[in-house]
């Protein structure tokens, strides 16, 4: 039985309303005691967390690991290493792998790879439709039995609204959460940037906010009709925030997340033709960003995710419209969340809840809290440590981030998953 004592840290556990200096005791992979260690507790390992924050390990609702199928961009091994260095102890893998997650065999493959990488909390999201082709429902029950935590169509469009309705009905029949990426494909077309001033000026094909908000409105209507529990993934604009707020107000069982970079960057931050700023949904207007942050602050947006999408070098080499969208985002998740708390006055407890307690609730996981008896998934971070985003500090195989060579503040120093110390920061 391994006993770990984390002492002198500022323990923040939003789920249990704890924010205090003290110790955290771990025994046999579980949380044993918070704040006051038992008198007879003799640790095998002691971690001094003085001047650091100790909180539940982060739960990421969307992180691409690029396996199976895109191993030139990353692997389960490389990206889970990045996750651990970012304090992420559980993550959801969207179904758009290759082959996509539409059969138990693929789920098993991912489990095996996760086991080999010693990262045991990858939650596969099953494909909503077979081959993600948007026409035939996947075997959702079999996927659930194999371990899928939810179903989603990722970025792939659905053939029509009837298929979405049927998918919702079927998913809810099996108690499955539907994670929905709102995008009306006909309106977003071949767009690669927010349909705003920047795209107008630089002649980039634009994606209007209506491409998201119209699809979102339709999905909410159908969720109302079908009673399906729906989670809206990676919203990006004011209209989406307003629609989700209204839906929640009138009692719909809906939750939502936003990617951390969407909460902080706008079209005004995009360096012209720099493909590291090519993301989908695109960086929206300042006003949209303001509404997203307001939404996070008032609880309309439940969770922050990384929307981690590592790429190989070639994917980002080319004229902006032909490059592949996405940011390698796991390792900037914490410092950017801290930036939200300092620059945009979102409380640290609220911000950490959106990375821990809330995603756990969305997924129905017994995690995201330092509750005695829970798996000891713990993140310890130094909120003042400044570090440069560069090859030495980076673990992900994808170097595609707009923050490359920039200094960020806030660094994870220790990550424990199930009571195992799997990451310890070494200033390389």
């Amino acid at each position, binding site marked *: 039985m391994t006993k770990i004592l984390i002492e002198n840290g500022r323990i923040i556990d939003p789920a249990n309303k704890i924010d205090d200096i003290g110790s955290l005791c771990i025994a046999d992979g579980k949380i044993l005691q918070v704040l006051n260690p038992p008198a007879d507790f003799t640790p095998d390992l002691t971690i001094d967390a003085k001047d650091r924050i100790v909180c539940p390990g982060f739960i990421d609702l969307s992180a691409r690991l690029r396996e199976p199928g895109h191993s030139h961009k990353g692997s389960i091994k490389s990206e889970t290493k990045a996750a651990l260095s970012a304090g992420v102890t559980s993550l959801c893998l969207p179904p758009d792998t290759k082959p996509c997650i539409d059969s138990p065999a693929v789920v098993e493959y991912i489990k095996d790879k996760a086991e080999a990488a010693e990262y045991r909390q990858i939650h596969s999201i099953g494909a909503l439709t077979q081959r993600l082709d948007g026409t035939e429902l996947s075997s959702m029950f079999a996927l659930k039995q194999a371990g899928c935590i939810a179903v989603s169509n990722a970025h792939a469009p659905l053939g029509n609204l009837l298929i979405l309705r049927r998918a919702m009905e079927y998913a809810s029949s099996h108690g499955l959460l539907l994670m929905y990426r709102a995008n009306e494909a006909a309106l977003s077309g071949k767009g690669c940037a927010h349909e705003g001033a920047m795209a107008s000026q630089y*002649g980039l094909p634009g994606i209007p906010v209506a491409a998201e908000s119209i699809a979102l409105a339709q999905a909410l209507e159908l969720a109302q009709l079908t009673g399906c529990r729906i989670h809206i993934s990676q919203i990006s604009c004011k209209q989406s925030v307003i629609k989700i707020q209204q839906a929640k107000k009138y009692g719909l069982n809906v939750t939502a997340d936003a990617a951390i970079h969407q909460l902080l960057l706008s079209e005004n931050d995009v*360096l*012209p033709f720099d493909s590291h700023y090519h993301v989908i949904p695109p960086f929206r207007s300042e006003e949209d960003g303001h509404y997203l942050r307001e939404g996070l602050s008032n609880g309309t947006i439940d969770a922050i995710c990384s929307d981690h999408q590592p790429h190989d070098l070639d994917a980002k080499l080319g004229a902006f419209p032909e490059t592949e969208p996405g940011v390698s985002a796991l390792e900037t998740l914490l410092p950017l969340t801290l930036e939200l708390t300092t620059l945009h006055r979102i409380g640290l407890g609220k911000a950490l809840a959106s990375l821990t307690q809330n995603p756990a609730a969305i997924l129905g996981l017994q995690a995201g809290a330092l509750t005695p008896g829970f798996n000891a998934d713990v993140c310890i971070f130094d909120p003042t440590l400044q570090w440069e985003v560069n090859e030495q500090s980076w673990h992900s195989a994808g170097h595609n981030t707009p923050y490359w060579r920039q200094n960020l503040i806030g660094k994870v120093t220790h990550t424990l998953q199930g009571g195992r110390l799997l990451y310890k920061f070494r200033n390389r």
Partner: protein
Amino acid sequence: MHRHLQLTEQGKLKHFLSIEGLDKGLLTEILDTAESFAGISEHQVKKVPLLRGKTIVNLFFENSTRTRTTFELAATRLSADVLNINIATSATSKGESLLDTIRNLEAMHVDMFVVRHALSGAAHFIAQHTAPHISVINAGDGQHAHPTQAMLDMFTIRQHKKQFEGLKVAIVGDILHSRVARSQILALNTLGVAEVRVIAPKTLLPAHVRSMGVIPLHDMDEGLSDVDVIIMLRLQKERMNSAFLPSESEFFKCYGLTEAKLLRAKPNAIVMHPGPINRGVEIASSVADGPQSVILEQVSNGIAVRMAVMTMTLGHHGGAA
């Protein structure tokens, strides 16, 4: 951003990718330099030795006989060696092939790339990845920029109007897809015109066109009222009946430049068009060939302006005499 990439530390032109970031002084210098080249075409020997020994590659990923020809002529008149490379490519081609092409040509010790590409930002990308001694001129990238076309338009306007201050300019047609219009708008505003109007149905205007420093209008009579310069844009016929416009005839009725509509402009207004023109679609033949048309002068001026840009970009590292 563009200023940083386009200019040397001394503020001289290194690449010519966009009008963005270039100040009035530099644009005027381009026009003045072009002025000095304008007479060469009239000489018996239409050549100067300014770029002798230099190799210029016309790298066209998108077809354009007219633009390529004027760049070729400009380079030839500067005594440079010219290599024309047309690369049929799809919009989805990978960046590696673009880079590989560039790297291969670099290995042949060329001095300049004149680049046309179907995607916005392609010339910018090439400029970022070429060897330091190579200059890049953007000959049109996607819907982004066509700066030499804009400068030859400015040259033509200056010839006729002498100065930019106080001028009212109307740009008519497919602004949404037009790299020429984007560059013209930047150039006109930088050079200090009083007003730039863009006239088109909403389907052919960028959603946030006002942020570009123009007045959007949907009515020709209102838009052409009292203007000094009318720039008609080519309407790509494939845009007809594809949810942008209902028909050629309706577009011509609303936005085609006819003699009657021209009467709304100032009596001495000039009519421009970057070509090739679609007669009876965006402009009536009587106007295109009429006394106020300067369309063919634009073509002639294109050579002088491109000579100016070539010498200025190559000049800072010993190209010019």
